[in-house]
């Protein structure tokens, strides 16, 4: 019996060793570089150093090296923001499929779907026979691993700040051969933001803003996010000054936000928060801000400029005329 135990143990150890060796020697399909630090935008220089034509190998936002032999013709997008950017770069016709959450532009909803944003089907992705898959940083790591072992080029885009939105546009432009379109998109965004900044420059007040995605707990966006950037551009002040994603009800009462930015669907719940009706200015005056369906403040896409314009108009109506353009009496150049 002792001998039998020993044989079994040795065999088991041998098997473990064998598999260990096998896995170690298996080359990982994707090279990785250390992720870029979030506040220095060196993507532009990196992309400029690449060869002007395909084939090329570029580094995505997750530090993965993605090799592309030719401009992609069948692109599968795994996130609403990616789909939107693809359409923005004039690649709408090359989007083979997207997710059920992709609703902008309206054509995106007509594409075949590979599942939802958070419950996509890897089989459906691969059945589209794509030559490029674009995902955002919310993608499940296990899906990344599966797509990597399937050897399909996968570009992961991640934008926390406005500067990173520019970066992701440029990376996507480079990967798809639409560099000029990407540069134009970035320039457009910048000029829109500049106009807003200049208009707002004359404002005397900086209304305090709270962003809310849910009430229990209160999910929000703190510093280091594009929403925080945009609140600043639009002439507001985010009450969440740290890089936090949650805030307590008591902290909100202390911070006294003048405006609450949230989806229409949770407005009633926000108004019901204990004590807010009596103590929080935004609830007392019912100053809730929701971007129009044509604008966004939650997706890292060029349409953020529209959201920023609407927010600026909401926070400082005196500086804009009725249709949202900077008021004519301002001495600034018009867009």
């Amino acid at each position, binding site marked *: 019996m002792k001998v*039998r*135990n020993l044989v*079994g143990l040795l*065999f*088991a150890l041998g*098997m*473990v060793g*064998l*598999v*260990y060796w*096998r*896995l*170690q020697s*298996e080359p990982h399909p994707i090279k990785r570089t250390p992720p870029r630090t979030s506040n220095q935008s060196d993507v532009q220089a990196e992309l400029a150093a690449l060869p002007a034509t395909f084939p090329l190998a570029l580094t995505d936002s997750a530090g993965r090296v993605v090799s592309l032999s030719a401009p992609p013709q069948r692109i599968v997008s795994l996130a609403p923001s990616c789909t939107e950017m693809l359409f923005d770069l004039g690649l709408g016709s090359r989007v083979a499929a997207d997710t059920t959450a992709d609703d902008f532009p309206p054509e995106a909803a007509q594409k075949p779907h590979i599942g939802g944003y*958070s*419950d996509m*089907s*890897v*089989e*459906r992705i*691969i*059945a589209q*026979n794509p030559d490029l898959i674009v995902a955002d*940083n*919310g*993608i*499940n*790591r*296990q*899906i990344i*691993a*599966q797509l990597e*072992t*399937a*050897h*399909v080029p996968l570009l992961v885009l991640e934008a926390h700040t406005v500067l990173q939105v520019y970066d992701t546009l440029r990376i996507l432009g480079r990967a798809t051969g639409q560099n000029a379109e990407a540069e134009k998109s970035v320039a457009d965004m910048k000029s829109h933001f500049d106009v807003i900044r200049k208009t707002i420059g004359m404002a005397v007040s900086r209304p305090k803003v709270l962003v809310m995605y849910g009430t229990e707990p209160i999910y929000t966006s703190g510093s280091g996010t594009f929403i925080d950037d945009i609140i600043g551009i639009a002439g507001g002040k985010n009450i969440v000054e740290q*890089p936090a*994603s*949650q805030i307590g009800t008591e902290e909100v009462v202390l911070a006294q936000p003048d405006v609450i930015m949230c989806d229409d669907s949770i407005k009633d719940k926000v108004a019901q928060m204990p004590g807010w009706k009596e103590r929080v200015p935004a609830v007392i005056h019912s100053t809730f801000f929701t971007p129009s369906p044509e604008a966004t403040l939650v997706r890292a896409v060029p349409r953020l400029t529209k959201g920023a314009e609407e927010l600026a108009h909401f926070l400082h109506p005196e500086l804009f005329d009725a249709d949202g353009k900077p008021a004519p009496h301002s001495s600034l150049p018009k867009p």
Partner: protein
Amino acid sequence: MNSPRLLRILPLVLLAAALLGAILTDVWTGDKVVARDVTPGRVLTVLISHLPGMSAPRDLSYVDTIVWTIRLPRVLGGAIIGMLLAMAGVAFQSLLLNPLADPYFVGVSSGAGLGAGIVTLLGGSGLLAGFAPTLAAFVAGLGAVTLVYALARVNGRVPVQTFLLAGIVVGTALYSLTKLTVSLAFRSGDAAKASAILTQLLGSLGHLGWRDVGLLLPFGVAGAIVLSVSWRELNMMALGEESAAHLGVDTERFKRRVLIAGTLVTAAAVSVGGIIAFVGMVVPQMARRLVGPDHRRLLPTAMLLGGLVLVGSDWLSRVYLEGLDIGVITSLLGAPVFCWLLRRRMTTMG
């Protein structure tokens, strides 16, 4: 003269054939949307093309990816996980003389889930060639079962009822700690990490690749060997610990060995497929009804049946339930069986 022997192995042969059939069916059929392109004929072509000496048909490259890179490892991995859980279930049930014992109810699954979750939270899932979560799951699972054992010990004996109670208490506590790791991952702003741990909590096969099959295999083989060579002792333990001791079994050592082996195979299954409840309890029960209590036949029968149940549930999930996590399916199917067993046990005892 041959017929009793034939009769003995017939259920095994039938089960093995059924498992093979289930594996093929699961690979053949799938998602309605994909079904148009991935026809049984093409699947067969792809499978044949991977035999030694054959070359892959170029025009079917994405069907090849679906079948060979996604479906086959998922189905084989699922079959192995089912076998591991059934094996662990047989071991725990025999050792504790309790048909309700399984890796989930004695706290091993929750412990293993916590271990793997912590490694994922700390970003170490790739360490040790991918074995790090399994190792952590093993250590935490062993810790959990030791704690349960210590809690349940009354006057040097471990009564069945207190053992189950202790198992549920420890299991619930560890499950809550695993939820804490999800919360921490969310708070650190790493949604991808949080969803990885959450998938583990739910129990899912959707992400399995060849690497995972490679991770599972050695544990499956090692556990199967340790438990198979123990069938005589397991049979004697079924007579009660004292009788087994009289028959020459070093019961304390033997219990330790089987607990460690059971925990090891559970850890492997949980670190790869997540917490898949009820399989470890229900499958050994079914196997017992099929072939009786002799562990020489019970162990292989339970293993094959476990593989069959998991592959079947996976097929159900992929074809009809939009890829619902398999842990949810086994819980939905297993919970009524658990209630029935509990009820029956109470009436026989009363």
